[in-house]
C-alpha cells in the first residue's frame, strides 16, 4: 500500500511537470512545423514570462491588492502580453531576415538570441534567484496519517486544469478559426499558401505569438510551483520542452502534449526512485535514444528527403 501511494505521488508530480512542459513544447512544435527551425530562444521567452508575472504580482502586492483571482489574472495577462511581444520581436529581428537560408544559419542566430535574452534579464534583474510567492496553498491528502501520504496540492490541480483549458482552446483555434486554418495550410506548403493569398509572414508571426503566450502561461505556473526563478531557468526548461516536442513527434500538437507528459513522468520517477540529480541525464538520454531509433517521434509524420 505504501509503495503504491509513493508511486501514485510520483505519477501526480510527473503529470504536473509534464503538462507544463507540454505548454512550452507547443511553441517549439508549431514553429518547427511551419518553418522547420528550432526556436532556441523559446526557453528564454518562457523565462521572461515568469519574470513578468513575478513583477506584476509584486507590483500588485505593493498596492495592497491581495484578492487571489485578480492577482493571478493580472499576472497571467501581463506575462502573456509581454511574452507575446517578445516572441513577435524575436521573430522579426532574428529569424525573418535569415529565413530560407542554409539550415545552420537560423539555428546559430537563435542561439545568439537565446544568449542575448538570458543576459538581458540577467543585467536588468540580477543573477540571483528570486523567491516566487506560492499564492495557491493547501491540497488533498490520501493515506493513513502515520505513514506516507499521497498529496495533491491545489497548485498541481491548477496547473493541470490550466493546461487542459489552454490545450482545448488551442485545438479549437487551430481547427475552427480562419487563422488556425491558415496555420495548417502554411505548415503543409508555405509557397503554395503564399500563392493562394495567405499572408504567410503574418501567419508565421502569429505562430510565434501563440507559442510565446503559452510559454508565458507555463512560466507563471512553473515559477509558482518551483517557488523561485532565475535568468537561467528558461534554458533547461526549454531543452526539456524541446525533448518533449521531439518525443511526441515534432510538428504535431497532440504529440507535444503526449511527449510532455511522458517526459514529466519519467523525470519524476527517476527522482523518486533513483536520485534527483540524474533526472536531467535521463531526459537527455531519452532524447538521444528517441532521435536514434525513431527520429519522427511517437506521433510525427515521416519526412521524405527530396532532392
Amino acid at each position, binding site marked *: 500500500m505504501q509503495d503504491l501511494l509513493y508511486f501514485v505521488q510520483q505519477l501526480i508530480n510527473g503529470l504536473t511537470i509534464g503538462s507544463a512542459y507540454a505548454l512550452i513544447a507547443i511553441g517549439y512544435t508549431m514553429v518547427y512545423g511551419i518553418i522547420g527551425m528550432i526556436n532556441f530562444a523559446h526557453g528564454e521567452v518562457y523565462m521572461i514570462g515568469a519574470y513578468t508575472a513575478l513583477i506584476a504580482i509584486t507590483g500588485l502586492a505593493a498596492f495592497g491588492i491581495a484578492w487571489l483571482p485578480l492577482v493571478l489574472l493580472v499576472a497571467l495577462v501581463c506575462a502573456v502580453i509581454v511574452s507575446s511581444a517578445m516572441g513577435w520581436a524575436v521573430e522579426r529581428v532574428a529569424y525573418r531576415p535569415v529565413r530560407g537560408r542554409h539550415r*545552420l544559419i537560423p539555428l546559430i542566430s537563435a542561439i545568439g538570441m537565446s544568449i542575448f535574452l538570458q543576459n538581458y534579464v540577467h543585467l536588468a534583474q540580477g543573477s540571483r534567484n528570486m523567491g516566487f510567492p506560492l499564492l495557491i496553498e493547501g491540497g488533498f491528502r490520501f493515506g493513513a496519517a502515520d505513514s506516507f501520504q499521497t498529496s495533491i496540492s491545489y497548485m498541481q490541480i491548477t496547473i493541470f486544469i490550466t493546461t487542459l483549458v489552454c490545450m482545448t482552446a488551442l485545438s479549437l483555434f487551430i481547427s475552427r478559426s480562419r487563422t488556425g486554418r491558415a496555420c495548417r495550410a502554411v505548415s503543409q506548403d508555405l509557397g503554395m499558401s503564399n500563392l493562394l493569398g495567405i499572408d504567410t509572414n503574418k501567419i508565421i508571426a502569429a505562430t510565434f505569438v501563440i507559442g510565446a503566450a503559452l510559454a508565458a502561461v507555463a512560466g507563471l505556473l512553473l515559477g509558482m510551483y518551483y517557488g523561485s526563478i532565475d535568468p537561467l531557468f528558461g534554458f533547461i526548461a526549454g531543452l526539456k520542452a524541446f525533448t518533449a516536442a521531439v518525443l511526441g513527434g515534432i510538428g504535431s500538437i497532440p504529440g507535444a502534449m503526449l511527449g510532455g507528459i511522458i517526459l514529466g513522468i519519467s523525470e519524476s520517477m527517476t527522482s523518486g526512485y533513483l536520485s534527483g540529480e540524474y533526472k536531467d541525464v535521463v531526459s537527455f538520454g531519452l532524447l538521444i535514444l528517441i*532521435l536514434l531509433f525513431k527520429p519522427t517521434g511517437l506521433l510525427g509524420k515521416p519526412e521524405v528527403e527530396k532532392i
Partner: protein
Amino acid sequence: MATQNIKHALFCAFITLLISFPILGLNLESAGTTLELTGADSATIVAILVAAIVVFLFQTFRDSILTAAGKMPKLNRWSDRQPMPQEKRLKLENLFMTLIMISALIWPFIVSRGSVDLSTLVLIYVMLALGLNVVVGLAGLLDLGYVAFYAVGAYTFALLSQYLGVSFWIALPAGALLAALFGLALGFPVLRLRGDYLAIVTLGFGEIIRILLNNWTSLTGGPNGIGGIPDPTLFGMEFGRRIKEEGNISFHDFFGIPYDSTHKIIFLYLIALVLAFISFLAIRRLMSMPVGRSWEALREDEIAARSLGLSRTGVKLSAFTIGAFFAGFAGTVFASKQGFISPESFVFLESAIVLAIVVLGGMGSQVGVILAAIAVTILPELAREFSEYRMLIFGAAMVLMMVWRPQGLMPMRRVHINLQKQE
C-alpha cells in the same frame, strides 16, 4: 501608404516599450523574505523612451531611409574589387602567418606576466576554435556540446595525475586520444541525424558529461573539482621553487639563474603556442587532403556527395573525431595552466563562445578563426568596465552576423586550380 507606415511604426514602438519596460524599468529586489519592486533610475527610463522613439521614426521613414542608404557612397571602397589571384593570396597569407608566429614567439619576453597568462588562454581558445572549425566550418555539423571533449581532455589529465601521478607529457596525448575516442563513441550513433537534431543531441551530450562530472563525487570530487594538477616539465626540469618529485632538477638550478615565477608561465605559453601551431598546420594539411575535400563536399550537398561514392558516416566521423582530438589537447593545456578544474569551467556557454568565435571568424577559414579567437578573448579584457555586457554583446553579434554577414569576417576561400590556356 504613409498612414499604413505610421500605424506599423506605432505598433513597433509599442512593442519596443512592452519588451523593454517591464524587465528593464522595474527591478525586483529581495528584501528579507519578501520581494520589493523599485523603479529603475531615470536614465534607464529615458533610454527606453528614446529607443521607442527611434524605432518609431525608423519605421515611419523606413522607405526613404533605405533608399537614401542605398544611394550613399560605399563605405568599403574595395567591396567590388576583383578577388586577388590565388598564388598572391596564398603568399600573403603565409607571410602573414609567419609574421604572427614570429611576434608570438617574441611576445612573452617583452610583456608583463599577466599578459602572458592571458595569451595562453587565447591560445587555448585558438586550439578549441581550430578544432571546432573542422566540425562546424568544414564538415557543416553543428556541434553544441564541443565543451564536453574539452572537459574530457582536462579531466583525463587531472584524474591521471591525481590517481597515477602521470606527468603532463604523457597526459597530453592520452587526453587528446580519449577525447577523440569520446568523439568517435558519440559520433557513431548520432551522425545519421539531420543538422538541427544533431545540434540538440550534442548539446544534450555536453550537459550529460557536465552533470556526471558534477555528481560523480567519489571520482571527480564533484563541484569541488580537482586541484594540485602538476605543471609541465622540460626534460625532467621543474619550474617550481622546490622540487616536487625525486630525481628531477629545477629549471633555475640547471641554468644557474635566479628563481623567477614567470619562467613557468612563459614555458606554458610556449607549449600552448607550439600546440596551437601544430593544430593549425595539421588541420591545414587535412583540408587539402582527400578527407578534407570530402568534408566540404558533404557539407555542400550531402546527397550529391553520397551518390559520388563518399561514405557519409566515415567522413562525418573523421571530422567529429579530429575536432574532439584538438579539444582534448586544449583541455589538457587548460588543466595544467589552471592547476585546478571543476565542472563549472565546462558549461554550455563555453561551447557557445567557441561557436561564436568560429562563426565570427568565418566558418572554415583558419586565419579568420584565429583572429576571431584573439579578438573575442582579448576585447573583454581591454574593456573591463563593460565585461558584464560581454555575453550580451556576444549574443547580439551572433544574430547580427547571421543576418548581415553569415560567411563571417574573413570568409573561407577555396583553393582552386586555374586552367591554363591551350596553345
